[in-house]
């Protein structure tokens, strides 16, 4: 009886101490299963998975398979010097690439400018601080003949596999986005930055139509919500 009374007195203090999150303590939850659920969820895993590699719940796609609508992710050229040389002639910008909303510029600033600088002069914050990363052959930026003479395909190849100190950006840019970035890099390289849909080549081709881009997802979401509002 005495002990129960003691516990009662102490319970609010205990709750206060356990309940307050901070440091390594996430606090307590009413229903922990709601936070760390039994089902598999992205980026939420307490125990090591015994079946999958690396103990992760996520699995890599089966080798040789392509997700629906992602056929353009397939890239035939190998990550070798030979592949790089072949990319100059065998890979080219798809016709019908439209970038009405300056997506290329947005992506360039997001993914390229930390190193290559907002204006493509290799003066991004990272290159400023770690100048040893700067490409030796064209340290002054995209206006260098080195980039001007580079084929679109070679830039694409570099985005897919990386080159020298630059890593692969295939995991963060969809194929369409890669081409949008390349189109913008070309603008920076030629010194006539005009970001009002001027990179539209033509609109007949539907070669990239199967790719699900961020814009597609957005317009899909927006359509459904707009309908809700109207009805």
């Amino acid at each position, binding site marked *: 009886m005495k002990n129960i009374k003691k516990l009662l007195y102490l319970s609010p203090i205990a709750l206060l101490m356990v309940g307050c*999150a901070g*440091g390594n303590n996430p606090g307590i939850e*009413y229903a922990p299963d709601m936070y760390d659920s039994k089902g598999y969820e992205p*980026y939420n895993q307490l125990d090591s998975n015994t079946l999958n590699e690396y103990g992760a719940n996520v699995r890599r796609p089966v080798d040789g398979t392509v997700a629906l609508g992602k056929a353009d992710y397939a890239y035939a050229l190998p990550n070798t010097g030979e592949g790089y*040389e072949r990319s100059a002639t065998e890979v080219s910008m798809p016709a019908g690439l439209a970038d009405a909303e300056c997506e290329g510029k947005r992506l360039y600033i997001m993914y390229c400018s930390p190193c290559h600088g907002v204006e493509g002069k290799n003066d991004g914050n990272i290159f400023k601080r770690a100048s040893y990363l700067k490409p030796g052959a064209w340290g002054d930026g995209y206006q260098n003949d080195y980039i001007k003479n580079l084929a679109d395909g070679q830039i694409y190849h570099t985005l897919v596999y990386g080159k020298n100190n630059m890593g692969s950006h295939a995991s*963060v840019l969809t194929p369409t986005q890669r081409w949008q970035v390349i189109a913008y890099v070309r603008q920076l390289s030629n010194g006539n930055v005009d970001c009002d849909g001027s990179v539209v080549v033509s609109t007949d081709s539907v070669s990239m139509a199967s790719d699900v881009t961020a814009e597609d997802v957005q317009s899909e979401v927006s359509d459904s919500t707009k309908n809700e509002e109207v009805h």
Partner: protein
Amino acid sequence: MLKTLSLIFILSFSFTPVIAQENAENGKALFETNCVSCHKLDKPSIGPKLRKIRSKYEDEWLLKWIKNNVEFRKSGDERAITTYEENNQAAMNIFANLTDADVLDILAYTDTEPEVAEGPAVSSEPTFFNNYTKYLLMIVALVLLITFLILFRIFKELRTLRRKQEAEANGVTYEQAAQSWWSKNKEKFIIVNPTITVLAGVTGFAALIFVPWFFWFGINKVGVQQGYAPEQPIAYSHKLHAGELGIDCQYCHSTASYSKSASIPSLNTCMNCHKGVQGTEADGDNINPEIAKIYAALDYNPEGKPGEQYGPNRKAVKWVRIHNLPDLAYFNHSQHVKVGGLQCQECHGPIQDMEKVYQFSSLQMGWCIDCHRSKKIDVENNNYYEKLHASVKKKLNSVDSAEYKKQYFKDGKIVITPSMNGGLECAKCHY
């Protein structure tokens, strides 16, 4: 004969100045602008290490290779082709802008002896001294503690002994004496002494108010992880990367604009920079221990042969999740980042100043609702709301309803909040 001699004389004359002029200082400067992105002197990088490269290849060959290795390979030089293959076909750039003298300067620089590392003996002495002081203090503290305990024990024993003697003198046992003292004195403490009574009353009253208050406060913290800042497996600093270097959040959390989850970057994203960057200025030539953790997880050997640096024994980095919503609530990043155009900091706080990330917002429902009620949607410059905006304008023009106008207008301007667009519907987030 004379002709040959004179030719040799002229040749030797023309060669000597070149050798004499080899300038390792200039070579160092050239090396640091042209070569350093792919080559290091003592470690293999993108290309092979270059210290004493002249012992492997002769100058003539190196000149041709450095200035235009592509042409050189095309000319069919066997060693050029094998060199290319040996280095994972990483084509070296063409350096046509470098003169022969420049290249020889660079080669002279590669011939220099490595700087002798500063002896660690200097630093070992203070460390020893520090340890010594620390241990000495610990021993002194321990001795003092033991002395205190012994003295306390002696004092206690002596006191008991004295009381026993007093009790025996009065003709009772020690236990009886102790009990009778309490029975004689307890009224003084509880009822008779007014100070103690008042104090007890005040304490009781305070407890009556504060205990429930504490209880309420404690219970409200259940399920709220605000302030949670767990130790992560790699001490990644958002302050350095997002703050000082100004890298966009979405460089790493790249799916935030088109996925439910903002995504934890896989290690290849780290390697985009950390293949080259192996530490800060403070680390010197050593690999930063936190960056070494990336390499360990990838089984990456930064000094390995190009193309064979990644080993097979990879491990997952087990990041600790901080922001976690219960399954009963649905949240989608793309809706807020891409459509709503919110900045990451509006919910996650000053991430760019956080050395270690903590949960800034409470993530409680009231917090969501507050924002959904008050946040103005920028309908004018957002394609997503084109239809909504048009329909609102059309309605406003066709229906002359004061109530309707009151809902959508503030100071003559259309104001739309998420709550007007279904942002308070239960089933939007709970389904």
